[in-house]
Structures are given as structure tokens and as C-alpha cells.
């Protein structure tokens, strides 16, 4: 089983806006070739390939060679280490906001 990627590495990987855009595009559009991704990335194909390499090392994308093309797909499950704490704290704040809403209604009276 693959070792979970540390949140630090995930944050660093996704902190770059171009890289993040590539990852989001793969999440939205499913598997795509490097050429297809380059058409929308606004940077050169070597730059896109480099970003994909970083995403792959972070476990965020998977590659599948087909002929001369390499196709990439998103692995959103790799975001899980970020989500556990996020979910936990989001639950806490949602509950606090429920109480805040009750308080605001009482303040009217």
C-alpha cells in the first residue's frame, strides 16, 4: 500500500496556480493527454509535463502511456490527508454557526 502523502507536500504541490489549474482541469474533464492539457494551460508543453511530474510524485495524478501520447488522470483520493482535519473542523464550525443563528434570533427579542 502506498505511503500517504504528507499534507505539506500536497500544499506545496497545489500552491502553484498553473499546476493547480492543470489538476482542476483533470478533476473536471477526466483523463486527458499532455497535448490537450497544453492547449489550455497557457504554458509550453515541457512546462506542462514538468508540472504533471510534480503532481504525479505527490500522488495527485496517474499516467497511462498510449502510443506516443501519455494520458493523465486525477487521483482526488490523494487529497484525503487534507480532508480529515478539514472535515472535523468544518463540522465544529457548522455546529457553532447553528448556535450563532439561534443567538441572533434571540437578540431580536
Amino acid at each position, binding site marked *: 500500500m502506498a505511503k500517504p502523502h504528507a499534507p505539506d507536500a500536497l500544499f506545496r504541490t497545489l500552491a502553484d496556480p498553473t499546476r493547480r489549474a492543470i489538476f482542476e482541469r483533470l478533476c473536471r474533464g477526466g483523463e486527458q493527454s499532455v497535448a490537450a492539457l497544453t492547449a489550455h494551460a497557457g504554458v509550453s508543453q515541457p512546462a506542462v509535463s514538468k508540472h504533471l511530474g510534480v503532481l504525479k510524485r505527490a500522488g495527485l495524478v496517474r499516467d497511462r502511456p498510449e502510443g506516443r501520447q501519455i494520458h493523465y488522470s486525477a487521483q482526488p483520493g490523494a*487529497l484525503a490527508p487534507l480532508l480529515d482535519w*478539514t472535515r472535523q473542523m468544518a463540522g465544529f464550525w457548522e455546529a457553532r454557526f447553528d448556535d*450563532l443563528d439561534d443567538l441572533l434570533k434571540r437578540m431580536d427579542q
Partner: protein
Amino acid sequence: MSETRAVVVEREFAHAPEKLWRALTQPHLIEAWLMKNDFAPALGHRFQLRGEWGGVLDCEVLEIEPERTLAYSWNFAHEDPAYDLQSVVTFTLIPTPAGTLLRMEQAGFRPEQKQAFGGAHAGWKQFFEQLDRVLEQA
């Protein structure tokens, strides 16, 4: 596991920013929805939030702009690194036709990363907004 993390929770309330601001900054009102506290609306004021479970959070007002922004540190000292938390909670109030959109962002960093917080702040905000969208579609 390292401890870099952040969370954003937003909700629109059918109440004016002025009223939300009071709920966020008056101790007896804060207690009604969050925790017991000795908060004061002054930059640099140090206070504690005391949870029902007996835990105490050490806080300091880092940013205060009436009816718009309130940020304070939200630190929980614990000898076990798994429970030790150093974070910053930022409330942003945005007026809407129906009332106020309240945005809460809590961002935590390891102690040695605290200095990096200022510079990273703007970037993380944007990141988490986009992350939420990505996760909805994933």
C-alpha cells in the same frame, strides 16, 4: 504527520453585519454560541476561550476592523504534538441583500512555520476556495 491545514466555513445569516459583529465581539454573546471567554475588541488583546470539555485555547486579537474583519490566534498547547495546535481564525463579514455572509477561515501551521503565515495567507485563501470546488466535482 505534519500539521499544516486550513478550513473555510461560510454561511449567510438573515441579520445585519452590525448585529453579527456584536455576536462576534461581546463576551456574553460569544459565550452563547462559541465558548466562555475574556475577549475584548482591541488589537493585541490576549484572551482565553474555555471549552465545556475543560480545554483552554490561548488567543490574541491579530486583526480587527469593525463589522468587516476579526482575526485571532487559536492556540491549544499540548505536550502531544498530535493535539498541539497553533492556528489563526479569521472572520470576514460581507453584507448581502438578505443580511450578512459570514466567512470563517481557520489556518494552522507548525510553530516553525508561523513566520511563513503572513506571506502564505493570501495564497491559501485562494487555494481553499478552489479546493472546495474541485472536491465538489471529484
